[in-house]
């Protein structure tokens, strides 16, 4: 029988102080029984002598000092795992909420996880085809990478995340794929859109959902990604599956963390976020990866909304320092109805060079994206120049680059949320767009590659003129 304590001495915000507790351990979970018999869950944030500070996941509304009972469970949060979790929907703290049967666990895993020994990591170098040109062609995603989507309010990040979950495949292999989706403080509509989309394509059978909606307790969000990642680790490293984890929306997670920090009266860092935000985010993001001698992998796509589209806001800023690149969405492209509105220039995949090239995608891939980038960057500059000086004032060269940039946006970036392009289609489209330039202008591409690939597209160009 677990010992019960009725010694709650103070409650403030999401925190509760309990006195005269014996044998409390840092980080362990507790059950909290209210006067009306309902049960809430909490985690120990600090122990000092026999005083314990508890964070209550479901919030402290209705908690009183006289009737509330605390039971120490003597263990950290755990998730029951078995292959049956696939196709199931859980709450933000890992309780099934789809009216299905209880999970009969193969094992119980500590949701806090353990850091992966850097020595045992296997380098991510296998290309994942997402069918989206701006990702495959310019910012290739590889297995075991973490590549966030930096979005803003009103931008279609949900659609992109769904498109990724639907289309992502590994070239030329019959690997088992799974999707783990963690919703943190998103709306019912957004969560339902995702569930419906996966259901339509049958992908739901290979998915695990952890849902904490906007009206669910905010503090629960701190636990949600940890449960999701624990499920992902189980599927990837125990079951050998290729797991794609989508965390949506990390900004809400960070706000919950800020709430706790403020309640503890900690010295705030930038914009009131705690000084340990970087470390906290890293313990989540770094759970992505591959491990030597293990077939499975965790690829992570966190989604976050940037307040006022500000990339220097602490949440996108610290995320960008941990993840291996970022996909940034652009409001101006979205206004032009270009979908998916990926802002190509500031987007980046750090691992791109490892996942592409001969034998993985195609030998011309690296040079091609460098050239496309350079040409598009120049085209954007010309576009800006045109708005200042007027199009008529542009030099011949600037006008050509501007036209290229327009074409590039309309044909390469824009493809809609359902078109699934193969990597060959994406690469060929790149060559076709570049064919408006002379060979000598293509400084970033090896001459041999130009000679090999370009003629085909030049000829097309010639006949259409």
């Amino acid at each position: 029988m677990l010992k019960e304590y009725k010694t709650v001495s103070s409650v403030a915000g999401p925190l509760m102080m309990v006195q005269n507790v014996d044998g409390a351990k840092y980080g362990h979970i507790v059950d909290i029984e209210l006067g009306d018999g309902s049960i809430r869950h909490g985690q120990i944030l600090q122990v000092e002598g026999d005083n314990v500070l508890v964070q209550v996941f479901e919030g402290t509304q209705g908690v009183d000092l006289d009737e509330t009972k605390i039971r120490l469970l003597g263990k950290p949060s755990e998730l029951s795992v078995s292959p049956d979790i696939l196709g199931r929907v859980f709450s933000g703290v890992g309780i099934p909420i789809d009216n299905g049967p209880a999970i009969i666990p193969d094992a119980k895993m500590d949701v806090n996880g353990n850091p992966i020994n850097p020595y045992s990591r296997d380098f991510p170098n296998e290309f994942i085809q997402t069918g989206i040109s701006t990702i495959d062609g310019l910012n290739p995603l590889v297995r075991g990478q973490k590549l966030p989507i930096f979005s803003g309010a009103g931008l279609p990040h949900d659609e992109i995340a769904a498109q990724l979950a639907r289309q992502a495949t590994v070239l030329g292999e019959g690997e088992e794929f799974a999707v783990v989706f963690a919703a943190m403080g998103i709306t019912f509509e957004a969560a339902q859109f995702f569930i419906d989309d996966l259901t339509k394509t049958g992908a739901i059978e290979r998915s695990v959902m952890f849902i904490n909606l906007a009206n669910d307790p905010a503090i629960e969000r701190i636990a949600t990604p940890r449960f999701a990642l624990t499920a992902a680790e189980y599927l990837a490293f125990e079951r050998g599956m290729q797991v794609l984890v989508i965390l949506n929306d990390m900004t809400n997670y960070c706000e919950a963390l800020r709430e706790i920090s403020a309640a503890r009266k900690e010295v705030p860092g930038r914009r009131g976020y705690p000084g340990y935000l970087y470390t906290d985010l890293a313990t989540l993001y770094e759970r992505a990866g591959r491990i030597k001698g293990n077939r499975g992998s965790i690829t992570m796509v966190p989604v976050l909304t940037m307040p006022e589209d500000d990339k220097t806001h602490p949440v996108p800023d610290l995320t960008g320092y941990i993840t291996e690149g970022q996909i940034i969405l652009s409001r101006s492209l979205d206004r032009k109805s270009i979908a998916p509105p990926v802002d190509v220039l500031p987007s980046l995949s750090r691992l791109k060079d490892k996942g592409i090239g001969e034998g993985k995608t195609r030998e011309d891939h690296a040079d091609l994206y460098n050239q496309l980038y350079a040409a598009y960057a120049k085209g954007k500059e010309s576009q800006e120049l045109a708005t200042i000086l007027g199009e008529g004032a542009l030099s011949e060269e600037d006008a050509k680059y501007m036209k290229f940039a327009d074409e590039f946006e309309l044909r390469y970036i824009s493809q809609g949320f359902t078109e699934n392009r193969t990597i060959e289609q994406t690469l060929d489209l790149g060559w076709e767009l570049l064919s408006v330039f002379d060979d000598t202008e293509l400084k970033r591409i090896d001459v041999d590659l130009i000679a090999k690939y370009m003629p085909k597209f030049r000829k097309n160009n010639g006949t259409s003129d």
Partner: protein
Amino acid sequence: MSELGQGKIVKVAGPVVVAQGMSGAKMYDVVRVGEANLIGEIVELNNDMASIQVYEGTVGVGPGEPVINTGAPLSVELGPGLISSIYDGIQRPLDKLYALEGSFIQRGNALPGLDRDKKWPFKATVENGAKVTAGDIIGEVQESSLLLHKIMVPLGVEGTIEGIKDGEYTVDTPIATIKADDGSVSEIKMMQKCPVRSQRASKQRLAPDKAMVTGQRVIDTFFPIGVGGTACVPGPFGTGKTVVQHQLAKWIDADVVVYIGCGERGNEMTDVLTEFPELKDPKSGKPLMERVVLIANTSDMPVAAREASVYTGITIAEYFRDMGYRVALMADSTSRWAEAMREISTRLEEMPAEEGYPAYLGARIASFYERAGRVACLGAPDREGALSIIGAVSPPGGDLSDSVVQATLHVVKVFWSLQSRLAQQRHFPAIDWLTSYSFYKQYLQECFEDKVMAAEMDGMIKEAMSLLEKEADLLEIVRLVGAEAISKADQISLAVAKSIREDYLHQNAFHEVDTYTSLEKQYTMLKVILHLYKKGLEAVEAGIEPADIFKIDAMEAIARAKYIPEAEMSKIADIANQIDSQIAKL
């Protein structure tokens, strides 16, 4: 051990644990915490209460559990076996941990930094009966094909050497004894222990006298780092800090490289681990890993060990410096180190200074960088060693007014400013040529064997830089009034400045040839570009349109010059002739 006492935990808050009953403990003593036997270090003393930063996760630790003081400060083991190792922040070998506990790091396993079983061939370099003092080299071990490990007399030991002989020994087998004048005898092993938080002694500090060649054109040509110098690379994310660090680790002209991955990405450390063994040293052709020591405390590993990792790294680096080697230390990123300090400080409830960082942030950063330098090493034979530090800084939002950047700029002598504007244009390395600086420029000349060439290079560097400055002004005018409004000579200047940027400063780290450029090739490339400038100006004087000049084939040859291998360097020099003949035809 008993007089040190065994304490009892009274408080646990994240990585900080408070224990009572710790009388006799000293600041920075290493302790073992709780039933899980976690490793920690005392950072605050108050009567018999000690605050301890714990190097491992503290989930499951609670009041009443024991704390045992080891009575020794945090130390590293120094000796054969360091090279090619990969350690965590407190010198636990990650490969051995992997063998012991699998892919995920468990807690409470303290493994020694050096392999106790491996035998090393020791060759004595002094005779029995020789008088030795601290720092004297008494023998050698060929540790890797690139590194001859010198065995030195530890600090505080001197006297007459006895019983030394060649043979195969493990690191903790006595290889000799030293009998002091007062008759006391010390056993000498190949391994010595050294506390990490204070600098290793040397005979004398020396000023830098030479630049370190890195093969990176923008660095060597415009912003070189001196031997024993300090540099920092601040930049927002995505600007290529880590690639710059990796490039330097690969190509810098050092005998030993210590690379500290401090609170950074796990996959980046894997990249280093998988890539370095395949890379060849440009001089010897041997695998680069044979001169590298890696410290990997990734961002998901415990934060207190991250705080310690830079000290672990620099102490190892100083040890190799003391053998008389040139050592380069890369720390990626010092911002994560500062954040670790901040987190510990918050848990200790210290009064914060700016942005929540502790008030001693500036002092800690300064004293870290001050451990760099060229020194005359202790002991005989006379030798010089040098330790250069290159620290990456990751300012939030790329804001250079950040406390860590400012504290770093106070002390470092080289500033490579990374700009996201350049990174977005895919201009890598994204080092801004207008805002970066180096105080070691004058030492570059010393790196050329040919003194005439050195002097000429010096003039060319100044000319190229003034062209780049001029370009910034001209572009401003072009933006306002259009490209036609500037003079023909200025149009040439613009085109040549563009060529310097795109064909010279832009360097592809992932291209087989372009990844490293020798000083001689840098000289040749720059000379060709400036030759174009000279000829271009002459041509417009003679009435030729700039637009025609830009169409000559030699322009493209210049753009491709960086991909010409070192062995075919004459092809680059030959471009100058092409420029002459093609302009003459106009």
